[in-house]
C-alpha cells in the first residue's frame, strides 16, 4: 500500500528534471537566441540541445540564392562562448566565428543555392579533473528576400 504511493512520486521525481531541462532549452532559445535574428524572419525551425563542454552538434540545411540569411547561435551563461564553423559540400571551411571574435551571429547570402554543414562546439574551459559544465545551446536561422 505504501509502495503504491511512493512509486508515482519516484516516477515524477525522475522524469521532472528531464522535462524541465528540455522546456528550459525551448525558453532559452526563444528568449536569448531568437531576438538576435533582428529584422530577419525566423524560419520557424527549432534546434536546441543540452551540450557539455567539449561536445559538439552538427546541422545540415539548404540555403537559397534568392534569400539573405542570419545564423544565431547561443549557449547558456554557464558555458564558455560557443564556437561554430561553416562548411560547404566538399568540407571546405567557409566561415568560423573563432576568427571573428566568437560572434554569436553570422549574416550571409549565396550566389547559388547550396547545402551547408554547421559544426557547433562548446569549448572546454573547466580545469582538468573538474566536472565539465553543461547547458542549452540553440541554433536559429532567419531569412529575408534579397
Amino acid at each position, binding site marked *: 500500500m505504501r509502495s503504491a504511493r511512493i512509486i508515482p512520486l519516484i516516477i515524477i521525481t*525522475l522524469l521532472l528534471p528531464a522535462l524541465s531541462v528540455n522546456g528550459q532549452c*525551448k525558453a532559452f532559445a526563444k528568449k536569448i537566441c531568437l531576438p538576435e535574428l533582428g529584422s530577419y524572419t*525566423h524560419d520557424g*525551425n527549432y534546434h536546441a540541445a*543540452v551540450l557539455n563542454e567539449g561536445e559538439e552538434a552538427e*546541422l545540415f540545411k539548404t540555403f537559397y540564392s534568392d534569400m539573405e540569411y542570419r545564423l544565431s547561435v547561443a549557449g547558456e551563461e554557464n558555458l564558455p562562448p560557443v564556437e561554430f564553423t561553416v562548411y560547404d559540400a566538399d568540407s571546405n571551411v*567557409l566561415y568560423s566565428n573563432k576568427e571573428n571574435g566568437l560572434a554569436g551571429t553570422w549574416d*550571409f547570402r549565396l550566389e*547559388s543555392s547550396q547545402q551547408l554543414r554547421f559544426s557547433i562546439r562548446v569549448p572546454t574551459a573547466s580545469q582538468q579533473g573538474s566536472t565539465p559544465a553543461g547547458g542549452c545551446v540553440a541554433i536559429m536561422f532567419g531569412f529575408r528576400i534579397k
Partner: protein
Amino acid sequence: MNKLFNKGIRLPVLLLITAALLAGCKQGGKRSKDEGAVSIPGGSAAIYDDIKQAERIFYTLPSPLESAMLIKSAGAVFNEGLLNPVENTRNYLTNRSRALNLGIYTCDLSFASLYDQTQLIIDYMNAAKAMADGLGILDAIADADLDRLEENIHDTETIMDIISQTYLNSSSYLEDNGQPAMAAIILAGGWIEGLYLSTQLVDMNNFRGNRLVGRIVDQKLSVDILLNLLNDNKGHPVIDELILQVAKIKKVFDKVTLTTSQVQPEYDQAADATVLKSETDADITPEVFRELSSVVTEIRNSFIK
C-alpha cells in the same frame, strides 16, 4: 531488496526504470557515437562523408514559411484552388493524417499570408490549430495568437512572425516531449506541400529559364536531408512509409543535373555580410519535370485524403 521486488511491484518498478532511461535518452537529444554514421538510401552526397562524431545532428528542411517565400520570390501567382480545402480537417482523425496535414496547412497558410489572402489566412490558421490540438500539442496555436492574427491581418510581417512562432511551438513541443518522429512527419508534410504548390504553379509554356523551375531543382539538395531526417526515426510505421515515398521523389531528382563550382567566401563590407560566391549548372528536361510533378502530386494527394 527482496521485499521491494515482490511480485506486486516488480512490474511498476521495471516500468519506472524504463521510463527514466527513456527520459534520460531524450534529454538533450544525445546520440550514441554509432548513430553518427548516416546512410542515404540510394545516394552518396559527399557532404555526409565527413560527419564527425557529433553529440547531436540536426537535419533541417526549408520551413513552410521559407518554401512559400521561395515560391513568391520566383514570381508565381496565387491559386487558391491548389490548397488543401479546410473542410478536410474533419477527415483527419489519426496522428498520421493530423501531423502530415499540420505541415500541409501551415504551408498553405504561409502561401496565403504572402499574397494577402485575409480570409484564407484566418481559415488556414484555424485548420492548422485543429491539427495541432488533435495531436495534443498544448498551446501551439493559442486563442491569443488567433486574436493577434485578426488584429494584424493586413500586416504581413506580423503574420509571418505569428506563423513562425506557432511552427516553432509545435516542433519544440514534440521534440521536447519525446516525439521527434511526429515532428519529422510535420516537416515532411510541409516540404511535400511546398514542392506540390511549386510544381503546379509552373507555366509549361515558359519552362526554359523559369525561376520557379530553378527553385524546384534546388530542392534536389534537400531530398537527402529529408531522407536522413526520416532515417533517424526509422521504425515508426508512418516514417517507414514516408521513406519509401520520398525515395520515389529522390529517384526522379537523380535524373536532374545540378553541379556547383567551388564556393568562394567573400566579405561584403558595405552589407557586413559574407557572400558565398559560386556558379551552378542545373538542367531538368520538361519530361523529367512532368514526372516529378506527377510523383509529388500522387504522394501529396495520398496525404490529404
